């Protein structure tokens, strides 16, 4: 079992979700985050003070998958999120020790479903 964590641009979320659904991946957790990578930030101005914002708004997607789903999940995310510009984001794959469905108590690959 693996946990796929992806940081993407907020405005690409709709495309990524669509691509994931097309790849038969329906279960995910989406949260808002701030982050920085190669983009290095931009400037805002407020009452005469120009200041640099270098933590940019991001969207974080977490998907727990069985090993046979990892590649198609990653491909779907890339398909939805890639624009070719700096700031497209990153995907991390972690080993998942266990997964439990709270409603039934099932564990392991059955719980990921």
């Amino acid at each position, binding site marked *: 079992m693996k946990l796929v964590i992806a940081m993407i641009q907020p405005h690409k979320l709709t495309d990524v979700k669509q691509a994931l659904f097309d790849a038969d991946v329906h279960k995910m957790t989406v949260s808002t985050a701030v982050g920085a990578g190669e983009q290095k930030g931009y400037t*805002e*101005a*407020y*009452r*005469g003070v120009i200041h640099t914002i270098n933590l940019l708004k991001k969207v974080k997607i977490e998907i727990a998958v069985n090993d046979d789903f990892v590649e198609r999940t990653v491909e779907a995310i890339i398909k939805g999120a890639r624009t070719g510009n700096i700031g497209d984001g990153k995907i991390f794959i972690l080993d998942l020790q266990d997964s439990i469905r709270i409603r039934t108590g099932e564990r392991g690959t059955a719980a990921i479903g």
Partner: protein
Amino acid sequence: MLFAVVACMGTYAHAQTTPEDAVFVVNNVWMMVSTFLVFIMHLGFATLESGLVQAKNTVNILFKNVLIVAIGLLTYAAWGFNLMYPGDFSIGQFLGFAGFGLSNTPDVAGTLIDYADGGYSYWTDFLFQGMFAATGATIVSGAVAGRIRLPSFLVFTSVFVGFVYPWVGSWKWGGGWLDQMGFYDFAGSTLVHSVGGWGALAGALLLGPRLGKYIGNEVRAIPGSNMPLATIGVFLLWLGWFGFNGGSVLSADPGPVSFTLVTTCLAAAAGILAAYLTSNFVQHKPDLSMSLNGALAGLVGITAGADTVSIMSAVVIGLVAGVLVVLAVITIDSRLKIDDPVGAISVHLVCGIWGTLAVGIFSLNPEHSFVTQLIGVVVYGIVTFVLALTIFTVVRAIMGLRVSEEEELKGLDIGEHGMEAYSGFQIFVTD
């Protein structure tokens, strides 16, 4: 409105209704409406300040705005009104007091048509002026936002609006020595706005800046949390100014009142335009909060002479105020490193001084002179600033002025009030 007037005349006609009685009713109704409008400025200040401070301090700023109305009205009733309008002065034309409290029943002799030549009743006079007093105090709350201890602020406000405001106000509106000298302040560019502004400056200086505002040589922006609220606030304040200036005519006389409203609105409009252009020039992007300040700058600027300058002059006064407020914000915030979260010093003090001096430059009344206006500005400045500094210093010595660093970072809503303004709402934090 007309229906109300006719209805009033019906019940009023117990003896015989003279034309004078009818005019008195109309005048008083207008003055009461003006009172409502000045009252709505408190809602304007509350929303504007909430919009320009950080979300974690919203409850605190709202609380201060609510309490200021209470303290202002009660102290004004207890002694402030009679300190500001003593009738007779006891020490030169410098200090007078007409006794504690107000008349207690509605139809005491001399409180109705005789009170102000049919302009308004004694009760209307008290309440209208009382609303002014409270607006003067609330100017300070914005400049000290985010780091002042609540009890310390409440003590300062009680003394400042309770004693300083009415006492220095008596020198002009109470018929005191500055009035005798020919100093002119139609609706309070000095008496309300500058007085509040000097208090704000004293507070901001003694408190010091918010944590994280100035790091070494660098100036950081601490953006406001709610631009829609700030905008609502400014429009409410502008609405209030219809009564602030319109009611300062002290009757419903159609000519002066309608003229005053025109100069007032044109100055506000000019202020917005000038502030937008100036901030765009400096920041290369148009800043909403600066343009909002520009509206207020124009309004404060015209307040001293709204009834006594030409239409063209009103526009010029507004334009200059709009430029001044942007330059003042940048100078005070970035050059002088005095942290004023809402620009209260720039709007009320700087433009209040400009408005007062502008009467000396633009007034159509040959009795007004620049020198007299300048004397008034200087005297009010020295006395008010020194008194405000003194009160803050004494409060600081007795009970401390500033919250702890930990509380400031966590937010005054939790620290002073134990509650959140936007409970359950996820607030984005960057940097």
